[in-house]
């Protein structure tokens, strides 16, 4: 028994939460989406997810080694980035694309800035957007969920996500068809085309509920993000339902839930103040809606979040909370 006393200044107790426990719980919360992805797209999805995790962690370790920094892959953040990247890829991507995505996510998106905490942009989204711009063909080749439950679904949708289908349809038609080739229930449980992790709103909501319950993520950002998209797309839909999609589809598909609950909430890249978070969420929703309704891409969650990431330092500066006892300046 050592008889020495330890010295340090107060406080002498600390909450049990650490960076690894946060990252672990985020991974846990992503499990339902991972499960649905693998169930729907088969072993190929599992392979992509695994490859993304391993390559992300490997790139992190390699970068830290080269730069002479302590290796911190145990903190779990590279693992989270790998999973998020994979969940944001179509199940058809070739393996080398996954590696390129990981490289950009970890090296360009994170390590060159100085590692976890210093990166201004969400690393997984950096990886995804680089791929989206550089390899548009591979990144929009969709497969349809192939498990037996979906045998009855018509072929019209195969090879497209709901939002992509709408965009393409509107290029050649003036109005939407009276019956869509997908319904709300399908979009909710995950019977539509899309990225590995985005198809099932249900799975994402289960994970999100867990993170909110554990207070890992603040509710302000996802709620304001989703509400803004719902409100804007809903307004257009009410004005002209022949041309615009029902807002419920906008919320359930196109990676909005994945983005709002798991990427916009990336703590490193969003504001630390409550008001800042609110503006951030609304901004994400606004940009997503504008891109979806008027832009060239069928969905816009990734771009919207990245753009808002860039505003984070300003939002933090402009939305300093009122100091206790501070009289508002006249």
């Amino acid at each position, binding site marked *: 028994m050592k008889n020495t*006393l330890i010295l340090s200044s*107060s406080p002498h107790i600390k909450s049990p939460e650490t960076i690894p426990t946060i990252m672990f719980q985020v991974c846990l919360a992503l499990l339902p989406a991972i499960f649905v992805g693998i169930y729907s797209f088969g072993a190929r999805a599992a392979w992509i997810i695994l490859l993304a995790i391993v390559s992300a962690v490997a790139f992190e370790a390699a970068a830290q080694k080269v730069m002479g920094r302590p290796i911190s892959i145990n903190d779990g953040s590279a693992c989270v980035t790998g999973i998020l990247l994979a969940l944001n890829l179509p199940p058809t991507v070739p393996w080398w694309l996954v590696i390129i995505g990981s490289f950009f996510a970890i090296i360009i998106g994170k390590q060159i800035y100085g590692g*976890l905490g210093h990166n201004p942009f969400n690393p997984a989204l950096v990886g995804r957007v680089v791929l989206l711009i550089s390899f548009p063909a591979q990144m929009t080749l969709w497969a349809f969920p192939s498990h037996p439950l979906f045998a009855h679904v018509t072929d019209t949708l195969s090879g497209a996500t709901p939002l992509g289908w709408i965009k393409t349809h509107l290029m050649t038609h003036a109005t939407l068809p009276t019956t869509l080739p997908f319904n709300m229930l399908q979009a909710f449980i995950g019977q539509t085309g899309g990225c590995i992790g985005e198809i099932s709103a249900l799975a994402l909501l289960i994970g999100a509920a867990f993170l909110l319950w554990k207070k890992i993520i603040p509710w302000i950002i996802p709620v304001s993000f989703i509400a803004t998209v719902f409100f804007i797309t809903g307004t257009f839909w009410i004005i002209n339902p022949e041309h615009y999609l029902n807002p419920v589809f906008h919320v359930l598909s196109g990676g909005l839930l994945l983005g709002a609950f798991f990427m916009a909430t990336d703590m490193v890249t969003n504001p630390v103040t409550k008001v800042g978070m609110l503006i951030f969420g609304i901004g994400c929703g606004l940009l997503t809606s504008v891109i979806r309704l008027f832009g060239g891409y069928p969905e816009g969650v990734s771009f919207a979040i990245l753009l808002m990431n860039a505003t984070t330092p300003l939002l933090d500066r402009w939305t300093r909370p009122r*100091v*206790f006892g501070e009289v508002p300046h006249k």
Partner: protein
Amino acid sequence: MILHPFPGGIHPNDEKGLTAHLQVEDTPIPERVFLPLSQHIGAPAQPVVKVGDQVRIGDKIAEARGFVSANIHASVTGVVRSIGDYPNVFGRLSPAIEIETTDDSPFQPDKKREDVLSLPPQTLIPFIREAGIVGMGGATFPTHVKLSPPEDKPIQSLIINGVECEPYLTADHRLMLEHPLEILEGIVYIHHILGARFTYLAIEANKPDAIQLMEETVKKEDAKINVISVPKRYPQGAEKQLIKTIIGREVPAGGGLPMDVGAVVQNVGTTFAIYEAIRWGKPLIERILTVTGRGVKSPKNLRVRLGTPVQDILDLCGGWKTEPGKLIMGGPMMGINQFDLRVPVTKGTSGILLLPRDEVGEYHPHTCIRCGRCVTVCPMGLLPNFLGVFSEYARFSDAERYHLLDCIECGSCTYICPAKRPLVQMIRYAKGEVLRRRKKAANK
């Protein structure tokens, strides 16, 4: 009553179960006591005894120097053995008077003062000043100063603080359970002095027995005191946060005082001392403290003579039960870590906490991951993450613009930070640096 919650706050385990049920015990008279001349905020007291002098328990041995200062009294009967440097709670040496006990006779109170409430209010303050009473919740600000607000700051609200929001500590809780009448009487005296319109006794909701007992006592005595159960949240007992909760007004940022919003806050321990001083003429020579933590063999609530070395108390409680980790004077959130067991109990010592080695984590601070948790919990509405970074890079003027000096050093930010950044520690450093520079600039 409608409460006005303060922003932020944290919910650590309160750990009060270790001692909340234990009756306060008297400690045996120590063989010698060491009474630091500075047990309060303000100028150190001036010794009025010499080495070799005989002193009786309760004798004044050092006198307040100036208005913001406090008298010191002999806590035992004995002989002054030395006046010189002795280890203090802050880990430094400071002047103290050593008394060797020769006789264990207890303090003999004067005749009971019966006519207190018929005396003019102002005449009560000298009793308090004479008794050397200071804020016993830990702030140690001289009480007679706090009870003498300037004419232009009338006091509307008197708030008695029985919140005891620091985890582990149960001294105030026990005091309320064992001396409800005396506390009530003390409150009445303070009220007489200040003439406040409203009087509140705030107790944290995790002490339902104390709330009930105090409510009953107030009713029985027909006193005009509102006993208020405040939600359990740290730092609910911090002065500014408590005032906000009870009366809904915020002490102005940038150096405001409670009296700026017409409030005075007194801790229940202080209130008890005021009762003893006025009613019995008893100076502040002892206090109740909690010896606790999973590191100590038998946790206790104790009545301890001021100046008793920590070692004596540790021996009385059976010493360490586990491998020693930290020994803290005060609570785990704001208490001060000790390495020298000769350190004496002083007027501000609310507890002695022994944390076993395995409860003392070793932390390697990570870069801020900007999670915003520190911002959410800061009860002062500050941005501890930025203050920490500014301190780290010696950007003191930026830190000042971000209200560095309004930090109350409650430690909530450090507690919550998942990156284990020593935020309040960095903030304290920056505060010291800013104040030092200001002083230097003023002297030029």
